[in-house]
């Protein structure tokens, strides 16, 4: 081992210009990879974060119950199918306490909350706006969807007869905390509530429509008795939400939608963005590997006589192989070290330049140790692999040819 280390290191040190060239190539390549990975990961985490800030990871809804018609078909007529969906009003989850226990018992579920929601109309003076009435238990709900960071005015509280409304709706109806508001459900039921707070849900449409109210009030207003319409679930394994949805659906008999299923377009966009960044990384890796290989091939040709004399004096072929493999490995590893520095610097520089109107970074870049370690490992392996061809060439040199050469 000592022969390999000594000779590899000395050859690298001696071929300063070549070593600098090859290190520069690896550094730039690794830098680009780290930069792109940090930016894309940061961007994606940010987009997912924003998207999920007002959504549950999994939403359970009543299964579509199909009713058979009471009438039977007359003789001679064979209906292929005769099924009707129940109307939305009737499609609620009754007796949901055991279901909730079941859901909470799942190890991947970190929080859950029930909701009774339905369409309604908000009235103030002569103005009427159609809204989504959403009955919640405020404490439970906040374990699934954060509200404290969305509060714009008033107090985060939901006593009976109170409501939390979106900022757009408040503006449309001229409401502020303390104002009173009349809510009406589709069935004609009415209730007067007091606005406790206005919230910014991050999307205009939600801000225009969402009215959060106590569960009991919503159940009464919507005529659900004690039924609910949805169970919200939060998980610690964001990207396993699809699997979790499947399992919860199977165990509860409810329909379960993961956040991926409810945001299909977004998921597709994220996937194709990830695919194109992977493509860039693969191509850059290839370019780096070719760079290492070509410089080492030149180095082998240049040192042909030296290799020949080393072989003549009794150096085993495997030691010659090791010398050039190690050179590739060292260059890969050291280049990765410089490259991660460069990439991290570029990524942090980017956050300095790309800022929102209020001066904060557009999104945080993701620079974690996993990225550094995996990059260093990959660079080392790529260095070894790209050195393989030159190293084999060196090990197979015929000493007679090389010395006469």
């Amino acid at each position, binding site marked *: *081992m*000592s*022969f390999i280390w*000594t000779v590899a290191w*000395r*050859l690298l*040190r*001696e071929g300063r210009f070549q070593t600098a060239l090859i290190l520069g190539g690896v550094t730039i390549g690794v830098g680009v990879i780290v930069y792109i990975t940090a930016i894309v990961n940061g961007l994606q985490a940010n987009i997912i974060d924003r998207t999920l800030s007002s959504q549950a990871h999994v939403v359970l809804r009543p299964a579509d119950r199909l009713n058979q018609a009471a009438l039977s078909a007359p003789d001679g007529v064979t209906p292929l199918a005769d099924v009707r969906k129940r109307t939305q009003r009737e499609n609620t989850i009754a007796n949901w306490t055991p279901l909730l226990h079941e859901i909470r018992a799942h190890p991947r579920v970190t929080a859950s909350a029930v909701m009774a929601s339905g369409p309604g109309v908000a009235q103030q003076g002569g103005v009427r706006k159609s809204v989504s009435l959403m009955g919640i238990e405020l404490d439970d709900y906040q374990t699934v969807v954060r509200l404290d960071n969305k509060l714009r005015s008033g107090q985060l509280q939901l006593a009976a007869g109170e409501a939390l409304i979106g900022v757009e709706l408040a503006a449309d109806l001229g409401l502020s905390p303390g104002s009173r508001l009349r809510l009406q459900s589709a069935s004609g039921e009415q209730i007067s509530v007091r606005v406790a707070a206005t919230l910014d849900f991050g999307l205009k449409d939600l801000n225009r429509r969402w009215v959060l109210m106590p569960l009991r009030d919503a159940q009464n207003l919507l005529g659900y008795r004690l039924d609910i319409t949805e169970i919200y679930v939060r998980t610690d394994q964001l990207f396993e939400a699809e699997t979790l949805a499947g399992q919860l659906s199977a165990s509860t008999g409810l329909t379960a939608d993961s956040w991926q299923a409810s945001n299909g377009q977004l998921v597709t966009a994220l996937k194709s963005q990830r695919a194109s960044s992977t493509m860039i990384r693969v191509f850059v890796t290839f370019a780096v590997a070719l760079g290492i290989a070509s410089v080492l091939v030149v180095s082998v040709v240049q040192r042909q*006589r*030296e290799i*020949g*004399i*080393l*072989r*003549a*004096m*009794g*150096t*085993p*072929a495997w*030691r010659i192989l090791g010398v050039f493999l190690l050179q590739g490995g060292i260059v890969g590893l050291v280049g990765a070290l410089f490259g991660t520095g460069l990439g991290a610097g570029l990524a942090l520089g980017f956050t300095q330049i790309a800022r929102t109107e209020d001066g904060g970074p557009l999104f945080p870049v993701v620079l974690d140790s996993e990225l550094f370690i995996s990059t260093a490992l990959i660079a080392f392996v790529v260095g070894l692999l790209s050195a393989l061809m030159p190293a084999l060439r060196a090990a197979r040199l*015929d*000493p*007679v040819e090389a*010395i*006469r050469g």
Partner: protein
Amino acid sequence: MADVMVLQGIRQRYGGGDSPLVEVLHGIDLKLPEGGFSALIGPSGSGKSTLLNIIGLLESPTEGQLWLAGEQASGQNDRVRTALRNRYLGFIFQFHHLLPAFSAEENVLMPVLAGVGRISAADRERARTLLARVGLAEHAHKRPVQLSGGQQQRVAIVRALINRPRLVLADEPTGNLDSQTANEVFALLRELNREEGMSFLIVTHDPRLAQSCDQQFYLQDGRLLPPAQADERQ
């Protein structure tokens, strides 16, 4: 006295396939005594380097057998031949072929590092002693480019001796030096042969230097001439 190297019926052919088949050596029988100091002479193209490369286990003969220090050396694979070279043989070439990235002392120790894999204090001591013996004590830490041609060749000679080989092969070791330096280097080889006791086989063009050896082999057109005829040629 025992023989360090025995050759029997060595033939070497090159080419075949597309290129014409040429036989360069036509059945060489040769014995090199332990501790001897022999010259290999002959016209250019007569096959001296080829023979030396075969004796040095750097290439394998098409036919024939050879024994090195009593071990069968023909028909062995590269791994075995490499180990035999490292243990029993030293090489000196016309061009010194020192490694430019290493100092004189490191170059001298390279056969130890290449074979054993690491260098002991005793090896280092031997390298210093040998370098001092050839008058290079002051130059041990210089790079080859900082040395003169004669000094470089002396480093190469010491490198060939470091592993205490049984046989040192030198292919025109003075061919690249002016005549005075050549004489000095040749005299040094002779002294080292006496002091260290290993056998030498030296290819040279210089009849005067050849004459100073214990034994001369005359190679012509791939054949060794009998001693009487060889004497005539000189």
